[in-house]
């Protein structure tokens, strides 16, 4: 016959006398986090350190010849390769175009869809659906819609008397096209974050302001916008990081073209590493990208801290 422990009683083995309670707790804590920690070290920290090392060597993936070259890859990228600055410029244009557009649209949608009304779930689903749509399918469909004269978008424009450009074949318009299609794809995610934040604002604030005679704009400007501050910061940081890391969208829609008009940093790194097999150079570029994104994030956080 076995003894059943009473419910709610934690059964432990006999306490090892040489371990204090604190030490036991520490060991347990380490055991609990160890799976995640191991994963982090093997799949994140390890490669990160390796990239730093690779970036200091000239390493051809195919012939497996690696030579230590110090900072030559960085020197080459920053001071000798004109393409690099073009690529950085393109990445900045992409981010500057995408981040405000995405955030403004997300906020507008959230304001419209945060209240309860008939069909609200349907509209939320409609705007969120692209987020979970396959990036490949999304890009292929848009490529089709954005064809020169026969494309749906230009047919639509022609119907109202506008002759649309050959979207994906003209460098400036191609950039506009990839930004807008990316915004439509990803805006739903930020919309959901804003809706959650809006719903967390007590309705009393708005009611009180209205009693005081505040207009809709004043309520938004003086109450809602400041209270959305922390959410806005989070959205801004993740959207900026995401826009610098954009790869699949560019790869599928324009391949960096036309005339290098949409050649952004992440795609350029892919090209160097996986098409030219120059892993050392690609690693140096990845480090530079890491510094840029890190720098931008720190600046955004600092600005926010100054405001509060």
């Amino acid at each position, binding site marked *: 016959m076995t003894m059943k422990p009473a419910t709610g009683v934690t059964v432990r083995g006999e306490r090892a006398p040489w371990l204090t309670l604190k030490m036991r707790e520490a060991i347990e804590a380490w055991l609990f986090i160890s799976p995640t920690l191991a994963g982090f070290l093997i799949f994140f920290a390890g490669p990160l350190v390796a990239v730093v090392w690779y970036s200091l060597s000239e390493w051809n993936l*195919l012939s497996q010849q690696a030579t230590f070259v110090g900072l030559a890859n960085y020197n080459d990228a920053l001071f000798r390769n004109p393409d690099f600055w073009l690529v950085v410029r393109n990445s900045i244009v992409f981010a500057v175009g995408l981040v405000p557009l995405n955030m403004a649209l997300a906020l507008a949608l959230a304001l419209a869809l945060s209240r309860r009304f008939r069909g609200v779930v349907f509209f939320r689903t409609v705007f969120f659906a692209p987020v979970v749509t396959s990036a490949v399918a999304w890009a292929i469909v848009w490529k089709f819609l954005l064809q*020169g004269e*026969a494309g749906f978008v230009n047919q639509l424009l022609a119907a109202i008397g506008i002759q649309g450009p*050959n979207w994906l074949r003209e460098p400036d318009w191609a950039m506009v096209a990839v930004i807008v299609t990316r915004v439509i794809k990803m805006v739903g995610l930020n919309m959901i974050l804003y809706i959650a934040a809006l719903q967390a604002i007590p309705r009393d604030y708005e009611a009180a302001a209205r009693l005081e005679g505040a207009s809709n704009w004043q309520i938004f400007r003086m109450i809602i916008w400041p209270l959305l501050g922390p959410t806005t910061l989070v959205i801004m940081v993740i959207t900026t990081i995401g826009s610098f890391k954009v790869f699949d969208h560019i790869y599928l829609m324009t*391949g960096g073209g036309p005339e290098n008009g949409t050649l952004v940093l992440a795609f350029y790194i892919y090209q160097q590493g*996986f*098409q030219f*097999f120059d892993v050392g150079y690609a690693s140096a570029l990845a480090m530079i990208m890491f510094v840029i994104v890190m720098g931008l994030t720190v600046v955004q956080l600092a600005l926010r801290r100054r405001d509060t």
Partner: protein
Amino acid sequence: MKVRLKSITLSALALGMMSSALAAAELRFTVWTGNEAHLSMLNGIAESFKETHPDVTVRFETIPAGDYTQKLTFQLAGGNPPDAGWMMEDAASTFANAGVLEDLAPTLNAADGYDLEDFSEAAMGLWSGDGKVWGVPFSTSPFVIFYNKEMFDAAGLEDPLALSAKGEWDMDKFQEVAKALAESSGKWGFEFKDGQGYDTRIMHALMPPIRAYGGDVWANQECGFDKPEAIAAVQQLHDMVFKDKSIVPPGENGDYFSGNSAMTINQISRASLMSDAGFDWGIAPLPTGPGGEAPVIGQAAIVVFTAGQQKELAAEFVAHMTNKTNVATMAQFFPPARNSVLSSEAFTASNELIPAEQMEIVGEAIAKGKVLPSHERSPQILAAMKPRVDALWRADANVEESLKAVCAAIQPLL
């Protein structure tokens, strides 16, 4: 006494031949086809290898064509090399120069009845040098014009095959019929290979007309795009796209295989798509030009990887796979590079989709053709070319200036 000596020698020889096969072994062989007919043919060849190597099995592993070279590189870099595999022509120089391909010459020369000389010199050009052989071409597939017979009939025009038979199928005639077809049908006259002529297939779009005009994209480390022949050829294409509006322009779809273009350029392996096309069709040689006939060939070869653990065995399998019998077997799908097979009736009758007289065009083009250019830095060259070629394909582009810009970009890499 003599007889006994002979029999001892023979059994020693047989033992020697079998020694490499005594231990059970598996060869891993990468290919880019997933087609069941292709794979069952390849498995048949692997089965017949058992006659001399009873314990050796060959496992064919499919990697999709689009990722093939990249994934192969990762397998080699990751210490997980296949023993042997197919290789595309544009990767040939890069891989050979990196020293990752095994020299097959000793094995091929030692193989009984192999006859390495039977492969035409033009076909071996990319895959050999200094008495070494890095690969054996198994598919030497010329580019031909596919045409929609019904669209030609509807426009009341003679088709390219008939024009070619009369010796009138040249670049000017090509431009003329393309324009007439586009005007009469409201569709397109010509589509570049797989509709990719402005993106991944820029070489396949520019190369055939440039060669027809007697030029080349590069030769002897010198860029040829800015030479008068190339400029004239590309100017003509440019006029067809933007003035005649007969070639599907950049950013539009005009798929030949669904009946939206009257002609396209491709290899005969694409004939497999034609059974579903639902219209009468045919193939014809590429149009000639001031430079005469200039067939262009796309190639793929079989290679053995230096990093593999069973190099000798893999090389023996390659020798088996590319002997006369097996090349003839593979010819039903892949135009052969062996002269003896090429001239045989078995080859012209091998493709059930293409009539024998049209297969003769394929055979002639293989005999006279030049392969697409390759270079150890071809990925970099293509990437450097791409933005300048994008600029060329604008309606208001100056063709000569654009081609000079192409040369300025790629000359340092050549």
